């Protein structure tokens, strides 16, 4: 027997033996079965696949559909005056220091330099007391922003987290803030490390000292949404 075949066989047996005791819990099985029965079958798929012509030429049909979709997306992009080759889009989100007297963290809307896409931040402002938390959701509107465009805010880019005194004009006290970046959306790549947080002392989900941080979110395509969750802890 070929040494590779032998090792393959032995490794397979070892893996199967080592996992023989790993089983789904009975409650999980019952729950899973219930979920399956509650999930409707995608009817158009059944309907489409029942056509003999579709069944026979599925590969060719899929190719035609993909080509049509690609043409619909690529041609407008390629003919756009702003089109650039890129693997993703970056934008900056700004949370400027709070204005005096408030417990505010602002998320400033940012625009694409080409003006074709807008990033809106919701809520635009949140008042935070120690222990409270605000989540800013950044979403794109518009289209045709060049993929390589770095979307900049209207002022110095940065995420500032500050402790706001109970009453101004008391001096600013020390601040600790937790922040967490969350990516949502079907095409985001949060797991592959395309999102980065940079700046002095910035660490994902770590405690931050007062200061200005730049948070750069990269998403591979439009229609992704990003959110920044900030908790002022003291």
């Amino acid at each position: 027997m070929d040494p590779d075949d032998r090792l393959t066989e032995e490794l397979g047996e070892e893996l199967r033996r080592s996992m023989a005791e790993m089983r789904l819990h009975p409650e999980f099985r019952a729950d899973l079965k219930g979920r399956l029965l509650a999930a409707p079958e995608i009817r158009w798929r059944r309907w489409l696949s029942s056509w003999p012509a579709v069944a026979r030429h599925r590969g060719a049909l899929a190719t035609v559909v993909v080509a049509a979709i690609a043409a619909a997306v690529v041609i407008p992009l390629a003919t756009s005056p702003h089109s650039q080759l890129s693997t993703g889009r970056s934008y900056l989100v700004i949370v400027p220091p709070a204005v005096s007297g408030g417990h505010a963290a602002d998320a400033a809307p940012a625009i694409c330099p080409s003006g074709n896409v807008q990033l809106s931040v919701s809520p635009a402002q949140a008042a935070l007391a120690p222990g409270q938390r605000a989540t800013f959701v950044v979403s794109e509107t518009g289209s045709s922003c060049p993929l390589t465009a770095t979307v900049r805010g209207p002022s110095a880019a940065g995420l500032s987290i500050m402790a706001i005194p109970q009453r101004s004009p008391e001096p600013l006290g020390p601040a600790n803030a937790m922040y967490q970046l969350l990516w949502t959306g079907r095409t985001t790549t949060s797991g592959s490390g395309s999102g980065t947080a940079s700046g002095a002392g910035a660490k994902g989900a770590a405690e931050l000292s007062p200061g200005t941080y730049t948070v750069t979110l990269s998403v591979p395509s439009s229609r992704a949404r990003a959110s920044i969750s900030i908790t002022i802890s003291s």
Partner: protein
Amino acid sequence: MSSRRPDPEAEALAERWVGLYGDLALRTAYLFLRDRGLAEDCVQDAFVSAWRARSSLRDPGAERAWLMTIVANTARSHLRRRIPIPTDTIPADPTAHDPFSELALSADLRQALDQLPADQRDVIVMRVYLDLSVEETARALKVAEGTVKSRLSRALEALRLIWIPTTD
């Protein structure tokens, strides 16, 4: 008002899928994700996706490979979606990371599997554990058949340096 009774045929199919493939799916997902909880989530997502698309399965004889391919791809997609934890914030604790800790594997084999690049480990799961053919593996991983063969060969070469099978 009467509640809808599920179709007996669908009920039997769900019973069969969960009974026949549930444990295998869990183990397969675990090999990718190395976390029991994530593996269970993955099984749930994969089975529901497969269930919704079950009419696209044309060859009943390929049911196992089809379903396990969906499980594998769901697990790989879960891995891609996972938010990375910055390593500089993790305290150095050598006992904290114990790859494949739920498996009754020798420490050297666990270590060897953990050290394999992800693409080679994927091929090990599909070809060696699930015993899928080269063609099925290539289709599942969306790579050429030659790539499957070369990745498997490299993975076995690496494993051979660390792991010596104990033959009875």
